[in-house]
C-alpha cells in the first residue's frame, strides 16, 4: 500500500495494534455505552414480540399473516418516515394523520367523483400535502409559533376539512377499476419478481459497501473490515431470502376456487424505495447533514451559514408530503376514504413508530430506518394482540406502554451521552 506512510503519521486513530475486527467491535461497544444504540432496541423488541406471539398463537407466523403485517403497517410506516425529518429538528407534527386524511380525500374525490386518471389524482394529492407542509413550516419558521401549537391547530382544522371534503361524513369508495391505486395494498409481486427484488437489493448493498470500502482504503482511511461488510450483505441476503420464500408460498385456502394468493405485497418494494431515497437524502446530502445540525445545535448551524428557516420549512414539506403518500396507501388499503381516514390513532402510532425505532423526540438523532423498524413493532403488536383475541383496550394500553418505554430509553440514553 503506497499510502501506508501517510497513514501512520496522519491517522490519530486507535494505535493500530488491534485487528480491524476487534477494533470494530470495541468501537461498537463504546458507541453502545455512550448511548448510541441505533437499531438495537427496536430489533430486539421485534424479535421478542414475534417469539411471544408465535408461542401464544401459531397463526401468527403463517405466510398469510406475515403478508397482512406488511399491508397493515404500510400507511403508518410511510407517515412515520416523514415525521422523522420533523422530529430530527426537535419539532413535532401532530397534524400528519389528518394531513394524510385530507390528501386521501382529495385523491378519492378526483378519482371517483371527477374521474381523473390515477397519476393526475396522485400528483394533486401529494401537491396538497406539500402545500400543507409549506404552510405549517412557514408558520413555525417565519412566524415563530411553536410547532406543537401550529400542528395542533392544523390537527383540529384538517379534521373539519376532511368532513367538508367528504360532504359531512359520506364515504367515497375507490372503485375496483382503479387498479393502480387498489394494487398498492392489495396486490402482490409475482414470485419471480420477488426474487428479482431481493437480488437487486442485495447486489445494490454489496456494490455500495464495497465501493465505499475501496474508496476509503485508497485514501488510507479507517474502513469497516471485510468481515463486517460480508456479514451485512449476507445478513440482508438471508433476511430477504427468508422473507421472499415465506411470502411466495400459497396463502389461499383453496387456490382453485378463491384464486391463487402468493408473492410479496407491493407495499414492500414501495417502502424499500422510499426508505433508500430518504436515507440517501438524510445521510449523504448536504441538506440532510444540515437537518441534523439544526436539530443538534441551532446556533452552531446558524453560525455555519445554514439557513435554519429553509431547513425547517423543508422538513415540514417532506413530512406532509409523506403523509399524503401514507394517505394514498391508506385509501388503497380500505378501498375507500371516510372521515376517519388518517384519524383516531394513526398519528400517535406514526409518532410511536418513529420513537420506538430510535428517533429522539429531543431532536438531532434518528434515521429513516427507525420509522420502518418502529412501524414493524407497532404493526406486530396490533396484529399479534388481535390474533390473541385481546380487546382493543388492551392493544391501546400495550402500544402506549411501548411508546413510553421507547421514549424512556431515548431520554436515558440521552442523559448517558450527556454525562460521558
Amino acid at each position, binding site marked *: 500500500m503506497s499510502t501506508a506512510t501517510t497513514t501512520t503519521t496522519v491517522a*490519530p*486513530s486507535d494505535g493500530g495494534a488491534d485487528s480491524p475486527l476487534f477494533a470494530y467491535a470495541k468501537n461498537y461497544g463504546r458507541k453502545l455505552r455512550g448511548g448510541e444504540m441505533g437499531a438495537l432496541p427496536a430489533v430486539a423488541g421485534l424479535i421478542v414480540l414475534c417469539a411471544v406471539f408465535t408461542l401464544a398463537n401459531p397463526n401468527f407466523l403463517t405466510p398469510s399473516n406475515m403478508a397482512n403485517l406488511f399491508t397493515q403497517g404500510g400507511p403508518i410506516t410511510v407517515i412515520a418516515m416523514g415525521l422523522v425529518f420533523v422530529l430530527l429538528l426537535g419539532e413535532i407534527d401532530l397534524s400528519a394523520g389528518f394531513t394524510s386524511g385530507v390528501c386521501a380525500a382529495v385523491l378519492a374525490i378526483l378519482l371517483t367523483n371527477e374521474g381523473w386518471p390515477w397519476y393526475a389524482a396522485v400528483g394533486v394529492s401529494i401537491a396538497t400535502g406539500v402545500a400543507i407542509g409549506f404552510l405549517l413550516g412557514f408558520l413555525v419558521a417565519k412566524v415563530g409559533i411553536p410547532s406543537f401549537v401550529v400542528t395542533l391547530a392544523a390537527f383540529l382544522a384538517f379534521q373539519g376539512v376532511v368532513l367538508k371534503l367528504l360532504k359531512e361524513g359520506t364515504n367515497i369508495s375507490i372503485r375496483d377499476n382503479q387498479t393502480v391505486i387498489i394494487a398498492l395494498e392489495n396486490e402482490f409481486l409475482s414470485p419471480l419478481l420477488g426474487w428479482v427484488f431481493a437480488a437487486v437489493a442485495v447486489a445494490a448493498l454489496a456494490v455500495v459497501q464495497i465501493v465505499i470500502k475501496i474508496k*476509503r482504503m485508497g485514501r488510507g482511511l479507517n474502513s469497516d473490515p471485510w468481515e463486517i461488510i460480508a456479514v451485512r450483505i449476507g445478513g440482508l441476503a438471508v433476511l430477504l431470502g427468508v422473507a421472499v420464500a415465506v411470502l411466495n408460498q400459497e396463502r389461499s385456502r383453496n387456490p382453485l376456487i378463491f384464486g391463487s394468493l402468493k408473492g410479496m405485497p407491493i407495499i414492500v418494494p414501495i417502502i424499500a424505495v422510499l426508505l433508500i431515497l430518504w436515507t440517501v437524502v438524510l445521510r449523504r446530502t448536504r441538506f440532510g*447533514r444540515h437537518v441534523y445540525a439544526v436539530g443538534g445545535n441551532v446556533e452552531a448551524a446558524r*453560525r455555519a451559514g445554514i439557513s435554519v428557516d429553509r431547513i425547517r420549512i423543508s422538513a415540514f414539506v417532506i413530512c406532509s408530503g409523506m403523509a399524503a403518500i401514507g394517505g394514498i396507501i391508506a385509501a388503497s388499503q380500505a378501498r375507500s376514504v371516510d372521515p376517519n381516514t388518517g384519524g383516531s390513532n394513526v398519528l400517535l402510532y406514526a409518532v410511536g413508530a418513529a420513537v420506538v425505532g430510535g428517533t429522539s423526540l429531543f431532536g438531532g438523532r434518528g434515521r429513516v430506518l427507525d420509522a420502518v423498524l418502529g412501524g414493524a413493532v407497532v404493526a406486530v403488536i396490533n396484529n399479534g394482540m388481535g390474533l390473541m383475541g385481546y380487546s382493543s383496550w388492551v392493544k391501546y394500553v400495550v402500544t402506549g406502554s411501548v411508546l413510553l418505554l421507547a421514549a424512556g430509553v431515548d431520554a436515558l440514553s440521552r442523559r448517558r451521552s450527556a454525562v460521558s
Partner: protein
Amino acid sequence: MSDTTAPPLLELRGVNKSFGPVHVLRDVDFTVRAGEVTALVGDNGAGKSTLVKCISGIYTSDSGEVLVAGERVHIHGPRDAAHHGIEIVYQDLALCDNLDIVQNMFLGRERLSGIILDEPSMEELAQKTLAGLSVRTVKSVRQLVSSLSGGQRQTVAIAKAVLWNSRLVILDEPTAALGVAQTAQVLELVRRLADNGLAVVLISHNMNDVFAVSDRIAALYLGRMAAQVKTTDVTHAQVVELITAGRSGSLGLQPEEAL
C-alpha cells in the same frame, strides 16, 4: 518572532462603536501580527466582545478603518470575515453534539461529489489538519462530539477554524471551562497555531495563560485601548493595573484622558 517590516495582518484604526447612548468602543487602535499570539485583556464590559464582533462583522463599527494585510476592507458579516481568512472560536464553541468531528469541522462548507457528500476527502483533510496541529488527544475523527471532553471539544473548534486556510484565528476564552491538564494542552495548541504562521488573538481573563503563550498584550479599559505592549516588557502586576485602572506608571492612558 515575526517580520516587523511587513504590514500587520490585522490593523484597526480609530474604531468607534455605540449602542444608543452607550459609547462602547472609543477610537480603538488594535494591531495583530502573523506568527504572534496577541492577548486581548480587559475587565468585564471593557469592550472585548464588541471589538471581536466588529472584526467578525457581526457588528458594523460606527467609524474607523479595518485593514487586513495592509488593505482596507469592509466586513459585513461572518462570511466576509471568513473570506478574508478571519475565523472566530466562540466561547460556547458552536459545535453540534450529535455530529462527529469531521461533520462538525466541515459544517456549512461540506465537500460534495455531485450532490453526494464526499466523506472520504473530508475525513482525510480533517485528519491532516488535526495531525498538522499535532493533536494526539482524539481517538477517531468519526467520534461524536458528545463523547469528547471539554479540551477535546476546544481542540476540534480550533481545528475547525484552522481548516479554512485562515490567517487570523480569534479565540474567546478558550480555557475558561477547562481543567489544568486540558488548559495546558489547549495553550500548547494556541502557541503552535502562531508558530505555524497564523495570527492569533487570545481573549482571556487568566493572567497565567496570557503570560504563558502571548507575544503581545492589548489591554482594553472602558472601551479604550489602554496599551498594546510586548509581553516580555511588562510584569504581571502592570497588566493587572492596565486592566483595572487603564494605566500603570508611564504605560497606558494618562490621567487627563482616562477620566
